[in-house]
């Protein structure tokens, strides 16, 4: 039997006490839950380790954000890891971009058996069970021997080897985001293209990835590289269910990864297209259908649904009215999940249809010229926005620097949508009479 069967939990991007960004206005009753979302997700990770009797826990980066200077994050982290240590579960930590080693060293009261890999040159640490080495955990290094040499003289494999790589920022894993249905071998080409060549064939049995990538599994020659995604989505781009990964290693070295949801707050981005004959009932039906396609996880309590509705026609125009939007969103209701009813918070971004705009003929010369000027390239580029801000000549005391720093976070489509709507309003032309701008939109 080459390996001792073992089980461990792999999590990353805990982001303890880091607050969710770009949520939009939230109901008062959800504030506490949203504020505590990262803590609750971490609590679920700890509970999972205890309930499933994991051998150890891997934290592959960004467990907290040192810039938050959060005492609660440190306290919760220390408390959770102490509970694991009391149950005999070790924790292997790899600092990430947001929680560098210096920040970890400032975290006091950590259990003694928490292993922090602060340097790539750190030696691997053996995980023992009944005096036998069942796994070796260490930082990702470039000197791993090839997979073919991972046998001793008797042809037996060495202990299960785990390497943690906290920084995969250069790894474009968007294609591998479909881990839930992917099987081994499907991502072989992906592995070749994404991972450094010396890693795809190295003797690492499990490469624990970290960084800002989403949930991904890449098949290596000798094992798998896995990124569990964050335990709690922190921004609107972190859509879908979020959680950690329960990894079971069989005696034959087979790796079975199971997604375990932990996030109490879930982001969803939903897209709908409306055409002129669309009715309100039709819209509601499609919105419900789109929501029904998203399966709620047991851990989820709040869904932050960001709708992008593109199209044209009276229905889309009516959505600019706040009361209409509220009525439609109220009609969506809530769904059952977790311990109770799932609370849903919706926001709508309206995008006039580019094709409908091209097909619309209008005679207003000002509006025509206005849209022609908006359609010029680079109008909504960050450089252009920066020039506009510089032209405004705002004093530093008024937050000029702050606005400059925000430019990179702004959505050009939303700005274009506002500019489009403004043009419609200024020149007194109904939206269906004018030519909408491609990609513009309004967010509510």
């Amino acid at each position, binding site marked *: 039997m080459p390996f001792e069967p073992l089980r461990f939990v792999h999590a990353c991007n805990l982001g303890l006490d880091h607050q969710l960004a770009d949520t939009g206005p939230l109901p008062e009753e959800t504030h506490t839950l949203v*504020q505590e979302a990262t803590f609750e997700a971490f609590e679920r990770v700890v509970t999972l380790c205890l309930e499933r009797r994991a051998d150890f826990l891997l934290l592959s980066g960004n467990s907290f954000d040192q810039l938050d*200077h959060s005492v609660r994050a440190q306290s919760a982290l220390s408390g959770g890891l102490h509970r694991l240590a009391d149950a005999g579960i070790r924790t292997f930590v790899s600092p990430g971009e947001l929680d560098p080693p210096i920040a970890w060293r400032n975290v006091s009261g950590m259990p003694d058996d928490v292993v922090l890999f602060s340097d790539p040159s750190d030696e691997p640490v053996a995980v023992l069970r009944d005096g036998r080495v069942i796994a070796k955990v260490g930082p990702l290094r470039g000197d791993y021997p090839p997979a073919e040499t991972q046998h001793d003289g008797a042809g037996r494999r060495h202990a299960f080897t785990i390497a943690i790589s906290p920084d995969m920022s250069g790894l474009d894993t968007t294609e591998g985001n479909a881990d839930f249905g992917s099987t081994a071998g499907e991502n072989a080409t992906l592995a070749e293209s994404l991972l450094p060549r010396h890693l795809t064939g190295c003797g690492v049995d499990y490469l624990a990835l970290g960084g800002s990538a989403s949930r991904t599994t890449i098949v290596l020659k000798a094992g798998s590289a896995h990124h569990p995604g964050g335990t709690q989505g922190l921004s609107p781009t972190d859509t879908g269910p979020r959680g950690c990964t329960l990894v079971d290693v069989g005696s034959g070295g087979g790796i079975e990864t199971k997604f375990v949801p932990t996030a109490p707050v879930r982001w969803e981005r939903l897209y709908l297209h409306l055409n002129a004959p669309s009715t309100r009932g039709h819209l509601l039906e499609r919105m419900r259908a789109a929501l029904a396609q998203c399966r709620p996880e047991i851990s989820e309590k709040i869904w932050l649904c960001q709708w992008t509705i593109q199209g044209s026609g009276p229905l889309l125009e009516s959505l600019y009215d706040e009361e209409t939007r509220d009525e439609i969103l109220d009609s969506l209701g809530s769904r059952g999940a977790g311990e109770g009813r799932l609370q849903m918070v919706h926001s709508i971004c309206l995008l006039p249809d580019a094709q409908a705009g091209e097909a619309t003929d209008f005679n207003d010369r000002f509006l025509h010229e206005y849209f022609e000027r908006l359609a010029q390239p680079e109008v909504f580029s960050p450089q252009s926005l920066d020039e*506009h801000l510089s032209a405004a000549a705002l004093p530093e005391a008024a937050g000029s620097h702050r606005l400059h720093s925000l430019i990179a976070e702004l959505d050009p489509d939303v700005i274009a949508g506002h500019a489009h709507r403004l043009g419609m309003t200024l020149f007194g032309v109904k939206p269906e009479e004018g030519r909408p701008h491609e990609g513009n939109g309004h967010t509510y």
Partner: protein
Amino acid sequence: MKVTDIRIESFGVWRDLDLSLSRSGVNVFFGPNEAGKTTLMRFIRGVLYGFPPFERRRGMPAGVRSVAQGALTVEHAGTRCVLSRSADAGERGALSISGLETNEPAAHVLAEMLQGTQQTIFDNVFAIGLQELQELATLHDDEVADHIYGLTLGPEGKRLLEASTGIEEESSRLLHDDASRGVLADLLRRDSELSSAIQAESENQELYLAGLRELDKLTSKISNLKSRQGGMHSQLRGHLFLDRVWTPWSQVRDYQRQLDQVPVVASFPEDGLARLEELESELATATRCRNALKTEAAEFRRQGEALRLDPAIEEHAASIHNLVDQRDVIARLGEIVAKHRTGIGAARGQLDGKLGVLGSDWSEERLEGIDVAPSAQFKLLSAARSYQKARTRRARLRGRYERLAKSFRQQSADLQDRVKSLKGSSLDDAVTAEKQRLADLGELGRLGIAQTELESRAQSLQSSIEQEDQRRVIPMWVYVVWGLFGACGLLLVGLGVSTGMTTSLVGGLGYAFLGVTCAIMGWGLKSHHSIANHDHRDEWEDELAQVEAELRETNQAIARIAGEPFGPAPTPSVFPPARATEAKPDTGALIAKSARRLAELEGWANRQQRLASTRRRLSELRQRFKEMQRDVTEARQTWCSALGELGLPETVKIDEAFANWQNVSEAADARNRWLSARSHLEDHQSLYDAYCLRIAELAEQTGGEAAELDDPLAALSVWERELDAYRRTRSERQRLRKEEKRRKREVEEYEKQVDQLTAQRSALFVQGGANNREEFERRAGWVSTRQELEGYLSIAQSEVESAARTEPDLAVVEEDLHEYDAEENNECVAALKLELAELEQDLQDAHEQLGSVKQEVRRLEESRVATQLRFDHAQNQCQLKQACEQWFAAQIGRHAVEQIRSRFERECQPSVLASASRYLQRMTRGRYTNVWTPLGQRRLQVEDQQGRTFSPEQLSGGTREQLFLAIRLAFIREFSRRGVELPVVLDDILVNFDQPRTEATVETLLEFAAESQQMLFFTCHLHLAQLFESKGSQTIWLPSNVPATPERIAG
């Protein structure tokens, strides 16, 4: 309106001035300074709009009443008139118009001529001097400004202006220009506040870390204090331990010393004195009881000896008792004997009755030989069942055979009757013949159809041939034509031959050719007709012959099948169409009839086959019946032999045999019952007699009353009474003996007890090492004292051990106990307690500090302020981003609107400014290209050829005057387009222009005036006048000073 003449009677420096003006072009007036050029311009203004009321007439002596009077001769709308105005000083003057035939007031007529042009317009636009030209304010009159500053830009300009305003408002709403107000400003302030608060809150992390460090420090301090406290506690415990241990330890020493002084009594019995007392008490009690029991035993012996028994009864008591016990048996036995004697008679009667029923040949002995056991009955029953079954099967088979034979006979007779109708032929031959007939009939039907078709085909061919024969007859005219063709041909041949021979060979050949052609054509037509007709007819005739042959064969076949004689084939000509129909039999009916007959015959054949099968079946049944008969015979023999074996008379009647068997069985039962009753009587009678004999013998032996009685049962009653008395007496005597014996045994037991107690007392003395009671008591005292001391010693030792157990880590050291000083120890204890109290206080203080720090750390850990602040910051940042997006959208929109507006302002200005731009461009020789005003603003802008924009204030004085002149010219053109035609009066306005621009301006003015615009140009500069003259304009030279009559120098 054009001024043709100026007549000044009195105005300013002018008196009796008459000037004739050109109706078009530029009228240049040259004169030195103070020649009255400006006065002349004011005169024209005055005539048209009234003289200035308070104007001091220049040139008039002070105190002299000034009078303004003069006239302008004008042409307007094709009419000529004179506008005269006369005014005293301080008056605007009265207007009069001559030359017009109208009754309207002069003012109205003049206003109509001026097209409503106000005086300000005329003063600022039409009649201007250098001063008016240099002042921008002169263009700010409402009407003028309306045209210049876009107040009449139209709905598009207004929309653009509103859009511009709207986007400015939106931008200001988000972020005011001063950056201190607006949504974005508020959010930025909030962002800054939250950032500061978060920054301040982040310092809590340092506090937290410091708190944790303080916690570690305090924990360490407490640990040290506790360590010290532990040591002092140990020390104190040692002192207290000594204090606690010393007292029991000293007691142990005392008790041990006392114990050493008491003699040791080895193996003294435990509780020796008590046991001695107890033994002596028990010894006295046992002696007393023994004596009492001896007395009681003697009394019981005496009472037993007093009781006496009957010796005869005593001797035979067992036998008597046995008989008395069997008295009921003996009585019941007597009754049974009597009953059996009655029953045996009845059984014998029944046996005799049954033998009578069986007959006289049946005796008791024969009956005894009959076996009526169940096996015999079963054997008889089996034989009867076999015999009966064989008979039943034979009867059933016989019935079946008879029914089948009867049916066979009936069907056979019926079939024979039917077959007789075949007239001797067999049924199979009839079926074969009928099948052949049915096939022939089918063939006959097919041939009939073929016959009909062939007949109809022959008729059709016959009719075709006949029609063709009729059509083949060619009309006579055809033959005539053919003849003509042939004759013509021959004639032409002949003519050709003759012509060839006589006149011309070629002509002859031609005629010959024509003739041959005609002959060939005629012959060809005839041949074609004949060949075509003959082809069709031959084909039809061949086909008709073939059809007739087939028809003949068909008729022969029909005749053969129908049995008709075959005759010669009818010729087509005599073949009647209806013959075939008449000759045809009704084939369908025949086929049906034949089919029915065939079915009937086949049915008979089937019945015949079934009869043959039935015959075979009957034969088989007969064979089986014979076998069955043999079975019946064998069964009957078996039955008879079974009857014989059982002793019954032979008979084939089973019921009779079973009735005999029943009677024999009943007789055998009656005999068995009689024999059984007789046997029982004999048995009981012998037993009863034996009892009576025994009683009699015993009565004789015992004598007494029983011997005198004959009834054994009465003797038994006497014996029973005597036996009861005997038993009672003997029982009493036995009881007394038992009591005596028991008392004696008890006496013996008490004797043993007394001996035993005495021995125990002696043993106790021996055990206590004493010889008597006194010595035993003295030794017991020693033992008790030692035990008491040992108890005390044990208690003291246990106290020591208990004290030692309370401090297991402390050892009891003898030297310390020997050297123990209570006072000194107490002092040490007090000192240690004091020190411990101080240490406790320190520890308490440290704990309090620790608690405080822990509370602070916990407060920091549980504080949600930072979380709330970051959440608020995230929320605010989200709003900030949204507001920022809106603001950027507004900025981009504003930029776009500004671009649109800029383009609009430059390209879509009022016609006045457009014209002004053209004039300015010409006057500045292209240096400045565009004049425009921002939307909604009273602000002129000038754009040069490089696209740079200047305000009038930024221009040089000359350029500014050129700008204003250009605007006025544009206005005048605009008024002209509206029908307002007034003369333009320019008073030395070119003095500040440089030479090139002066020339350009002069050219512009000339071109301007050339478009039917009358212009009066006053100048004091000769070069200007010469310049105009060089361009073809007429110059009027005004005299210097004020001549009474101006001298006309030129023009």
